[in-house]
């Protein structure tokens, strides 16, 4: 990782170049059984890569404050490029991540979908 490409394709923007060079395969898994695999470039967020691939995933603030994009890491490793302020410590410990500020460190599988945020928070009084 990190060696420069001697012949960068001038038609590719920097993210696309880094995607072809350093990308990880990220499989997005929905509760209805659908699974899609996308390439996520180094430093690129999973939400940005999903959008670029034309896949609809939930998101709100795009800076890690709001939790709408909460996803469950099933396999692999991700890091947050900004502090995931909208994610409780107890949820982080259980393998939940915020896809809008998460970038993969390895190939990985993530469970995504609108209901995960509420699943993590639970329903008060119930």
């Amino acid at each position, binding site marked *: 990782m990190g060696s420069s490409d001697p012949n960068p394709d001038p038609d590719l923007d920097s993210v696309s170049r880094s995607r072809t060079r350093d990308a990880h395969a990220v499989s997005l898994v929905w509760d209805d059984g659908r699974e899609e695999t996308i390439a996520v470039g180094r430093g690129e967020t999973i939400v940005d890569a999903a959008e670029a691939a034309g896949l*609809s*995933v*939930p*998101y*709100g*603030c*795009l*800076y890690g*404050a*709001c*939790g*709408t994009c*909460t996803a469950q890491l099933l396999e692999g490793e991700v890091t947050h490029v900004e*502090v995931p*302020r*909208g*994610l*409780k410590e107890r949820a982080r410990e259980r393998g939940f991540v915020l896809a809008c500020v998460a970038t993969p460190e390895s190939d990985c599988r993530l469970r995504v*979908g*609108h*209901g995960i*945020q*509420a699943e*993590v*928070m*639970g*329903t*008060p*009084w*119930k």
Partner: protein
Amino acid sequence: MSDTGDHAHSHAEHAHEHPDVEGPGYPTPAAMRTESEREKTAYVMAPRVGMEQQGPGFVGIVDVDPQSETYSELVDVVEMPNEGDELHHFGWNACSSSCHAEGLSRQYLVVPGQRSSRIHVIDVEDPRNPEMVKVIEPEEIFEHDLSAPHTVHCVPGGKVVISMLGNADGELPGGFLQLDQDDFTIDGHWEADRGEMEMNYDYWYQPRHDVMISTEWAAPNTYYPGFDLDDVEAGKYGDSIHIWDWESREHVQTLEFGEEGQIPLEVRMSHNPEETQGYVGAALSSNIIRFFEESDGTWDWEVAIDEEPREHEDWDMPVPPLITDIVLSLDDQYLFYSNWLHGDVRMYDVSDMGNPRLVDRIWAGGLFGDRQEVQGTEIRGAPQMLQLSRDGRRLYWTTSLFSTWDNQFYPEIAEEGSLMLKADVFPDEGRMELDEEFLVDFGDAPGGPARAHEIRWPGGDCTSDVWQ
């Protein structure tokens, strides 16, 4: 950023004329109540954040003219250019507070994204043909170390002031963002000294008495991800309101309610500008609190209405009613409020504001509503954002609160969208009735189901205008 087009200063729907000066509103609350026409159009905020099928939110245009063939239908939408905004509350560039400002018209809706911190400006000079004319991107807001825009009021002096719930990181403190009324450029913070105020939510102001009142929800990164009782225990939710000097823009007093006023959200002062009192709905403790000015110029408060949690067989703990919105009729005679978890909307005679008298209620949806459907459609959610007709004879409401909180309490909204409902109000008889002929199902919105939140009329309404 796109820019505003030419400023046509023609009059918006329902503008009035004085003999010598024209302005965007009405000279008194009674003038608005009696001289305006019946509402024909409703603007409804419709977010699509956290839906099973996520998409851009929109401002919905709902036909509320019973003479129209498309009555009770969503007839058009103004779709936002981005996803993730969470459209929530919105407001006008001008209202009755600028009644005598010649050349100004109630023409632009200022439409914030609560989650994205993006602010949109929509030209509704033609009420049924709105046009997006400007978008202020989140980065421009964050430069002022603010985020999470909420309540929008036009204020005298050619400005628009928006309550902001967080700083650029979605943490505390919040503040107030001031925009220029002419071109919607950002002036910066409204407040000169926020004192001990950290949390923010709604606000109301009354220039005649040199006062502004602001309320408290929590830090965005606390309430955004959903509601957690541990955060209440940890003191991360509000229990106070703040008194500001309107002229000097300084924080002057905090009214701390403690357990009697947890999460004080919507605030309404009397429409009569002579009055120095109002109500705030404390959502979690489910109290209506009256605040008032004392003879020495300080402010005090008392619990005016106190509701109790209720046992439900499917829930582990007694469930609070959760008062999420309140609205005062333009003649200050009736208070309406919604209990979003219990599922009722209540009507109180508040002709003596310190002694409210319950006169009627409607159950529709929620955990305890005996009516769970209208026209064969399941009521997804429960009474939430309210809007009253100017003449006080029709009460409309929507059933979604906030995407993440909806998904915890009423997850079916994420799949099928929420509703807009209506009751006929009989102020002379002190009662109201659900209008079963009226139903707008945002589950049928073009492009997929949506939530439905705040409602406004062209020409102003019971929560938009302030009289000096």
